[in-house]
Structure formats: C-alpha cells, structure tokens
C-alpha cells in the first residue's frame, strides 16, 4: 500500500477546515457548522406508547430552518440524546415526506433509553441526524419488496415501508410480514390499521401463540415466511428483528432461493460517535454507523465473522 505525506492517494484526500463550509456539498462532512459532534436541540412534541416497552417520540427541531431543511433517506438513523445522560442510535421512523417532525421509536433497555422514556412532551433532546446508509430504494424501482420483521425490528424498516407505500406505483409489489409475541406487542398499530385497508399490498401479521379474537396468522416469523413461500423472482427481501429471528429468516430466504444480493438487513452495535471515528462499531473494515446499518447479505458475507 502506498502512503504519501499529504495523505492524498488515488484521488481521495483528507478534508480540511476550508472544505467544511456551508453548502460545500460534501454529504458526509457533517453539520453545516462543521462540527458533527454538535447536536441540534429539538423538542418532544408527541409521545406514543406503542407497547409496554416501546415508545415513539416525535420531535421538532427548535431551529425552524433546520426543521424545514431536514431530509433523510429511508433506513438512515440518528443519534437521539438526553443532555446529561448520553446519546444512542435509533432508526428514523417517520415518513421521509413528513415535514413537521422526525420520529424515533425507542425500546426501553439501558441507561439512555430509560432516560428517553422518562421524557415528557415539551422536554428538550439533542438530535444528530441523518446518519448512516439507507436502503437503496431508487435501485429497487420496478421490483417487489418483501419486508419480514419482528418486534422492534419494525422500527428499522418503518420509514422504508412508508416510503415504498407512498410510491407504490414505482414498485411491482409490496409484502409485509410482521410478527410479534402477542397482539399488544405490535408497534405502529395506528398505521397497520391503514395498511390493512389497502388492497395493493400483501400484509400478514403473526403472533407466537393462539389468542382469543386473533384472526391473522399464528406462528414464528420464519415458519410463516416459509408457508408464504414468496418467489425470489424480481424481489428484494429485507429483514429486521431480534437476532435469533434474523438468523432464521436469512436461512429461510436462502431456502426460498433468494440470493445474497437480493437480501438486506440492518446491523446493530454499541455506538458512541455515530460518525465512524471513535472506532468501536466496526465489523472488520466496515463501521456500522457510516457504512451501515443497512447491509446486503452479499456485503455481510465479505465481512469477518464477528457479529
């Protein structure tokens, strides 16, 4: 490998302060202010209790221009933080077309998520978004999209589902398989109700065990997936959920004939900076925060086995 004193190899180079100016057009150069560590202050405008352990937070940037100019690709994430406690990474779950707020769905699990769950409407949070690589939804035009998700995995796919539903005509078909342990553990029930009204998508909900009044599928997600037996022809398969569900869903996809290039998932890691510098979220040479969290199975197969 070659090294030069200026750090300039094969046309790539380091950035300097002179490069990181407003309107520089460098998408990854961080905030316009040039400081990617500086959060934008936002206010919590609505909190929705999705399930006993999951809340959705809708936040509005205090700076109206930031709110107006905010845009993101479906699948991108953001760092949502409580000043004094810390930040954590969450998928942005609002529709990309939503202008009034941005939305994160948070499962209560540790120090930061506990503090987030203790927030009320009107409280201040810090947001560093958007970050990471989203789903290549433009590339997928003309294809069928198959979403297979479980539990909080719906958060990672929500924005992308809404985007493809909004642009339904661009896609040859949309199937959603969503599994939860029990009926009360589905997130976005208010949106699912709207999905159920549509006749242009194939929506299947499944729970783990029989339950009075439940009229949809019963069974673990991978099992229901194999019963569905979707064809891999011209289809992109995306899965997200608890690690064990992802593992078996990927096996099921393979059994059904999906190639690694057709299969996508999102990875999760302990993160701190979210901008590919602090060094901790790597799998091999890839950082989940900037090179992911979206990865195709083909890309994952190239990475060392250290998930």
């Amino acid at each position, binding site marked *: 490998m070659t090294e030069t004193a200026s750090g300039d190899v094969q046309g*790539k*180079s380091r950035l300097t302060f002179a490069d990181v100016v407003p309107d520089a057009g460098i998408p990854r150069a961080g905030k316009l202010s040039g400081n990617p*560590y500086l959060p934008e202050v936002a206010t919590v405008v609505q909190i929705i209790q999705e399930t006993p352990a999951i809340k959705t937070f809708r936040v509005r940037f205090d700076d109206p221009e930031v709110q107006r100019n905010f845009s993101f690709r479906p699948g991108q994430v953001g760092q949502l933080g409580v000043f004094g406690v810390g930040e954590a990474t969450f998928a942005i779950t609002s529709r990309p077309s939503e202008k009034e707020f941005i939305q994160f769905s948070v499962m209560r699990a540790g120090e930061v998520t506990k503090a987030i769950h203790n927030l009320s409407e009107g409280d201040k949070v810090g947001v560093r978004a958007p970050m990471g690589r989203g789903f290549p939804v433009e590339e997928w035009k003309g294809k069928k999209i198959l979403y297979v998700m479980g539990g909080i995995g719906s958060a990672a796919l929500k924005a992308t589902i809404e985007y493809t539903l909004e642009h339904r005509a661009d896609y040859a078909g949309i199937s959603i398989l969503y599994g939860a342990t029990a009926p009360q553990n589905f997130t976005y029930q208010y949106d699912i109700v709207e999905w159920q009204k549509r006749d242009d998508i194939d929506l299947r909900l499944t729970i783990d065990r029989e339950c009075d009044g439940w009229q949809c599928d019963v069974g673990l997600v991978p099992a229901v997936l194999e019963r569905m037996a979707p064809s891999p022809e011209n289809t992109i398969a995306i899965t997200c959920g608890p690690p064990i569900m992802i593992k078996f869903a990927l096996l099921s996809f393979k059994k059904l004939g999906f190639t690694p290039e057709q299969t996508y998932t999102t990875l999760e890691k*302990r993160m701190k900076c979210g901008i590919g*510098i602090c060094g901790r979220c*790597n799998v091999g*040479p890839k950082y989940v925060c900037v090179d992911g969290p979206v990865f195709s199975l083909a890309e994952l197969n190239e990475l060392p086995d250290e*998930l």
Partner: protein
Amino acid sequence: MATKFLAQEQLPALLEALAQGARVVTPVKSDGVVQFELWSPGTEVELDVLLAKQSPKEWVFPQCETYLRFDYTMAPPAEGAEGEAALPHETVHLRTTNEAPRQVIFGLRPCDARGFVQMDQVFGGYGGFYFDPLYNARREATTLFAVTCREPRSTCFCTAVGGCPAGQEGVDALFTEIDGGFLVEVLTAKGEAALAGVATAGGAGIAAPTGVTAGAVTGGALLDATEAQVAQAAEVKMAASAKVEPPFTLEGIRDNLHDNFADSRWHDLCMRCISCGTCTYVCPNCYCFNINDALVETKGERYRTWDNCFNPQYTEETSGHNPRAHKANRFRNRFSHKFWYYPDKYDSLLCSGCGRCIMHCPTRIDIREVLRVMGTPVAATAEGKEA
C-alpha cells in the same frame, strides 16, 4: 527549504524564542520517567532516552476532552401566550468548546510524528467521511520539530512499516544531533513560520513566509549549515537506519490477517495478554475513544476520553450481547485494525513502528511476533517463511 545548524548550547534560547508565540512541549525526565511536558525556561530537554513513556499524541488528541457544555434553565413564556404556553418551560443552552492553543512539540521522534499523519486520515474524513473539528483544530495549531533517532532500540521497527529513524512524514523541521549541535532541516511552510524571525548570528536567517510577521522574538542562532555538517548528519541517519532490523515484511500481511481470521493461533498468542489498555494508550496512533455525559443538577458536559478495544466492555451492547466477549477476539481486533481494517478504509497503516507497546506491555506482548505468526499464510511452515 532551508538547512541550518543550531549549536547545542543555543537550544534553550531557540525554545525560548519559540515560546514567545506558542507553548512549547518537550520530553522531560522527572524521577527517572520521561514524558512530554510543557517546557519553560530552565527545563532540561531529555534527548538521551530514545522514547518518552507515552507518545505526544495527548497534546493534539487529549486523553479527556470536554467538547459540549449544556445548561438547563427555565425560559419565560412568550408574550401573549395563553394556557399551558403561558407557563415557563425548561430549555437547554448548548456551548461547544474547542481549545486549540498554538504549540510546538520539540524532541519527538519521526515515528511519533508519523503517528499524527496516520491519525489525520480518520479524523480528517479521508475518502469523504466525517471531519473532526476538535482534533483538526489542535492539529493545525501544532508544529512538530522531530529529532532523528541516533540510537534506535531493539524494539524499534519503523523501517518495516515504511518509516525510518530520520523519517520526514508529518515533520515540520527535523533536527539531527551532530558534533556541537543539531543539523536543522526545515521541511514545511509551517516549520518555516514557527522559526521565522529567529535572530541569527553569522548567517542568513530563515526568511519569514509572506504574510507572517517576524514578531519581536530574539535569541537563538540558526546558522547556515556547512557541507561537512550536512554530510555528518547523513552518516548519523544511515547508521541509525542500519540499526533497525525489520522483523517482518508488510507484503501479504493484510491478506493473511484476512485469511487467518478464524485461526486458533490467536488464542495462543494472547494467553499472557491481560486485556488492559497500556498498548493503546502509549501508542502514537491508537485513537479510539468513548463519549460520556456528566450532569450536576442543571449544568453538565459531554466529554470524550481515550478508550481501547481491549476494554472487555468496549463492544458490549445494551442487550448484553458482546461480539468480542473473548479476549482473543479483542486481541485479534487490535492488530487487524492496524494492519487491515484501517489500511482498507484510509489507505494508511495505523502503526509507525515505535515499539512502545512492546516495551510497556506488562507481559511484553510483541506486535512483531504477532504479525510474523498471523501475517503469514496458514500453509507456510516456520522454515518456509523468512521473518
């Protein structure tokens, strides 16, 4: 760029002249321990001991750095507000802090300087990634005056990773000890600017670059170097390079680390590793860090501190899952990061061959041994591959 000579006894005067416009940091021996400290007139600069305990990286990348402060306050309601909006509400004020005092680090070694260049890639958003203003502000405010290594140690391996005892990467001016003083090779505009205005005696001074005022600095004597002095310096450099025996060749290491990822020999190599952070913290280019918040009542800060991939909880997720729960995996990660992951992303190694990790590891884990073993193809036998 200019080549000058500085007499030994003029070194304090030169440092004092530099201290007029910047703070000066040099290796200082205290109770037998050599560390990079702030220099002030009268402080003796330690150049006989080859390496300070730690690299000077903390002067550009501090071990603990607060970069955000916040205050929670109550904001009064807007005029004419009604109902709930008429109540005061809690708000938060943010302030960023980014101190970057001008400084000159004198007496570091070429491997230390190279460490900065290697870190510049990740902090500088090489390849279009994010730009770190905290590191870069300090980096731009820092001038590096390195001193050629006259007596490399047996633990040095700079030549194996593309450096050398008189290496110039990242160096703004290189000082080489010769009879009576130092040969001073000014290598960059930044080096010139720092030395600008240093009064000379009996020779042409370094002209200040356009736009830089000479300032009211006096003292120091940078004479034009004679041919004999230049020749002697060249000899010193060559002799030093000859003393560094490359323990491995870089060729193939990256691919072999990739192929050997699941090899059980990682376990054998790390048996005596105690999974502390010594190697990372003394290294001139290890840069991984942690971010934490602190809040006392309504005032708080967000700060970053050095962290290391040997920390057992470095990658531990909230769910409890830890991709590198086993010591051998963490061990493998450090060497793979330095010789495979980092070069893949930033086209730069993340090791400058200083050997501090070997010297200071409590059980003397040897990076050269690790690379010799794991950087060779699995099929190669000990006899077949020349170390």
